[in-house]
């Protein structure tokens, strides 16, 4: 089991290497360090000297791939690729281009804020969606099914932006039930600020989630073993909630576990609208401030978490599927 996990984790390495190269290409070839310097210094009236200084200060004044001026190991290590890109593998994210703060520290500081929103949203919406999907699957072919499905399509067709904006309008501005935005980490206040973003998160994932889970359930319901279960005299409830659910867990798990990166990376819109200082707003700040170093780090972190979640999918499969656990 342990060996299996190690092996699966190693599969992720070439993928992360690919991500790393892609980012390097994007941030250091398409957009050269000189371009970056110009962006930061303002495009007009700057001298090459200023640019070189800026590059020196921010560690971009090195050759990109191979440093011919150095001997081994400096020939490889004294390069932008090594110092700015390969270092990501060691989680050394470096410093922000904008305010020189340490990116790693900032990420760690912000993660809990993101989780405050994403984890409850994730748990509540999964429970709600699964429950509704099962009810709908139970009443498949009836008007309950039809109307819930129509509701789902309608809800899917509305941008998350509207949920948030209208939610703020109704709950905060109109009825003044909760504050419009902001965050307070002290215990009782905490809920006041979180309620609305969580509610909106759950609502905006409802349509797609229910439909997805319903499809999975219906796929299982048409299988032979369900007919066997019915032929045994089991009630429709047991057939659905015991037999179909456990099999449906396999595709559901995949869907759930790959959500993990998004939990940690935080909700961009939610954090932006509600003023929550998590990783989502960190990214949005980086965009508005053109902070390339922060963006690079965040993209790599996202891909890293994705690769990790794939390993977790494999592990969770072994827990649920006896064919993998034993076979």
């Amino acid at each position, binding site marked *: 089991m342990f060996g299996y996990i190690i092996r699966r984790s190693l599969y992720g390495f070439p993928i992360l290497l690919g991500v790393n190269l892609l*980012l390097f290409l994007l941030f250091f070839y398409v957009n050269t360090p000189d371009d970056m310097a110009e962006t930061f210094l303002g495009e007009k009236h700057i001298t090459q000297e200023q640019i070189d200084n800026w590059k020196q200060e921010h560690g971009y004044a090195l050759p990109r791939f191979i440093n011919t001026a150095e001997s081994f190991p400096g020939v490889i290590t004294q390069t932008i690729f090594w110092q700015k890109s390969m270092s990501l593998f060691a989680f050394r994210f470096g410093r922000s281009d904008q305010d020189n703060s340490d990116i790693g520290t900032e990420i760690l500081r912000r993660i809990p804020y993101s989780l405050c929103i994403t984890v409850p949203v994730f748990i509540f919406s999964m429970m709600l969606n699964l429950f509704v999907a099962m009810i709908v699957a139970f009443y498949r072919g009836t008007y309950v099914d039809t109307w819930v499905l129509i509701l789902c399509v309608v809800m899917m067709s509305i*941008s998350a932006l509207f949920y948030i904006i209208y939610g703020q*309008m109704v709950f905060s501005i109109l009825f003044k039930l909760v504050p419009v935005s902001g965050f307070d980490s002290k215990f009782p206040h905490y809920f006041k600020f979180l309620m609305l973003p969580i509610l909106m998160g759950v609502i905006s994932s409802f349509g797609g989630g229910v439909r997805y889970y319903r499809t999975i359930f219906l796929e299982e319901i048409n299988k032979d073993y369900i007919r066997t279960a019915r032929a045994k005299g089991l009630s429709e409830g047991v057939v659905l909630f015991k037999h179909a659910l456990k099999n449906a867990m396999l595709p559901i798990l995949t869907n759930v576990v790959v959500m993990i990166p998004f939990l940690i990376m935080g909700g*961009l819109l939610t954090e932006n609208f509600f003023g929550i200082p998590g990783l989502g707003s960190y990214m949005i700040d980086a965009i508005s401030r053109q902070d390339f170093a922060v963006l690079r780090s965040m993209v790599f972190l996202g891909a890293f978490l994705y690769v990790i979640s*794939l390993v977790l999918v494999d592990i969770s499969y072994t827990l649920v599927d006896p064919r993998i656990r034993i076979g």
Partner: protein
Amino acid sequence: MKYFLNSWAFQNVLVVLLILLLAWIVMVMRQSEYWRAAFRRVFKRKLARISFVILSIYCVIALLDSVGFNQPLRDTEGQVQCSADTGKVLRDEQGMSLLDYILTPLRASKEKTYSAPFATHQFTKETVMDETGNSSRKYPALKHPRRHLFGTDKVGNDVLYIALKGIRTGMIIGGMTTLLVVPFAILFGVFAGYFGGWLDDIIQYVYTVLSSIPSVLLIMAFMIVYGQGLTQLCVIMGITSWTGLCRVLRGETMKLREMEYIQACEAMGVSKLKIMFSHITPNLMHIVLITAVLGFSGRVLSEAVLSYLGIGVGADTISWGGMINDARMEMARSPIVWWKLFAAFVFMFGLVLPANLFGDALRDALDPRLRTE
């Protein structure tokens, strides 16, 4: 280059090509018994018929907004102006589309600033001087009272007109991206699935790398490097979304490869390229179609979010995302200015809902087992 790609004229060429391509696809499909039967099944549903009509209307508006001309400049007396040295007629550099032309009454009915839908007076107070020379603060009457279905915005433009102009952007994002995605996804998916081996390994590696970066992050990185713009947005959305379709097509090709009719072709000595493109690809087109329609609505929704986040089409292009972005400030006013947001909501919903419904109808008719998220 970047500016050329984002120029009005270039995009119009693309839109017209897109529509022509669509027409060609329809023609090809009409030849095939399979597609005729499939669409008969789709159009049996009332919802699908209604959705199709609505989508067609959006298409027509987008087309009207893409065919245009540069109006000659006129002087104050209405005379056409000519260049002094060459004698050529001087033209307005800002192009004018057929839609603009048709909507001239809407376009021309500008107010000074905000006004609510169907209002007779301006939304904000102004200091007005009456005949006696006394100044007072009051709501001035509008120049075009009760004419603005969705009110007017900060600089007095009719919001309905802006929302209508947003259609073209939405359709380009949805349609052009699909155009970029489909050929690559088919080519790579079919090659990987049919040949297997190292080719398959490479293609799989590429799409795994691309799909391992959460798409919104990849879009961010790309857009910040290349800058905002409609073309960039289409390209990066294409890059992030071909992987999903490619994976599905690869899997489906692997299944088809084992089908006996493909084996019969191989035993017959039919060339591999012919097998791939005249036997396998036609049997994948239903998946492509369903994914394209459902993906279309997803992209329209994404555009709004990305434009809101400042990595979308940019401020120069009118889009629903941009409207929502503007609305943010307006919502903070008291009393709130809600109509611009509302117009964006109505127009987006009016496009995305029929696209979703039509996509569903297609899936139910063509491949009910296809799992779409």
